[in-house]
């Protein structure tokens, strides 16, 4: 089975996000007074072959812990979509 995985990497609670804070500070001057809590993280997409959704998730969790994120300062959220038919063939991930 093939899955398209999206991993959203964010900041651990309490960890400074200088990028988000800077963009936040800049917004009012650009006419956006109604925006708050800007946070900038990473988004990772990949295609994974696995025996089941839970198998895929488990593998990606391990990858997140070891390679894709730094658990000391980052959090991650995984979402999976099974790719079937054409999508699985081309697995464009898009």
């Amino acid at each position, binding site marked *: 089975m093939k899955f398209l995985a999206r991993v959203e990497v964010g900041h651990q609670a309490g960890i400074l996000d200088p*990028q988000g804070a*800077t*963009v936040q500070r800049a917004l009012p001057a650009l006419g956006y007074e109604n925006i708050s809590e800007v946070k900038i993280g990473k988004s990772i997409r990949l295609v994974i072959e696995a025996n089941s959704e839970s198998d895929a998730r488990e593998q990606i969790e391990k990858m997140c812990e070891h390679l894709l994120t730094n658990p000391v300062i980052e959090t991650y959220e995984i979402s999976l979509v099974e790719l079937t038919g054409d999508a699985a063939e081309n697995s464009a991930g898009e």
Partner: protein
Amino acid sequence: MARRVAVVVFPGTNCELDVARAISSLGAHTESVFHLEDSLGSAEAVIIPGGFAHGDYLRTGALAQFSPIMESVSAFAAAGGPVLGICNGFQILTETGLLPGALQKNAGLKFLCASVGLSVASNRSVLTRTTTVGDQLQIPINHFEGNYICDRETLAQMKANDQIVLRYTDNPNGSLDDIAGVSNEAGNVVGLMPHPERASAEILGSVDGLVLLESFLAPL
């Protein structure tokens, strides 16, 4: 020669003093213009120097394009005034839309500070008017996002209009078509990743940058 050169300073800009030093060694006078100002005064030429405007947060040049001074810079450029963006300044000019294309992370995914070989690809721009196509220059680069990119049509158009100003002789960052610097169609707005001000004194190892800056200051 342009005697009064405005050097635009954003929070995070760091090459403004270096540019001023190199420009004044050529006998011109620089004035630093803070990004919050809305006028370039009586400047005859404008330089946006390198650095990390707004920390390069979000994207290089992304926030700087909205500073009040950029409206004046755009108007100055539209009126044919010479505008030069160096490194971060180049990134800001592409974000502002004064120059085509964009600069993405170096192909090697590392910051790169090194002297590189350049070849003049066009002498139609303000930065290269006094040079000859094919001239070889040795000038330092200093960037993480210097990998020039644009779509195919833009590239074809730039080539047709002779807008590719400088090429790397040994591409250090993956730039499309070895592009190190480009101009707008009229040739009065130029951006380049290398830092001419860093090649402005014998004791620093090269004076090739002065060749470009001299051209930039030369009478139109």
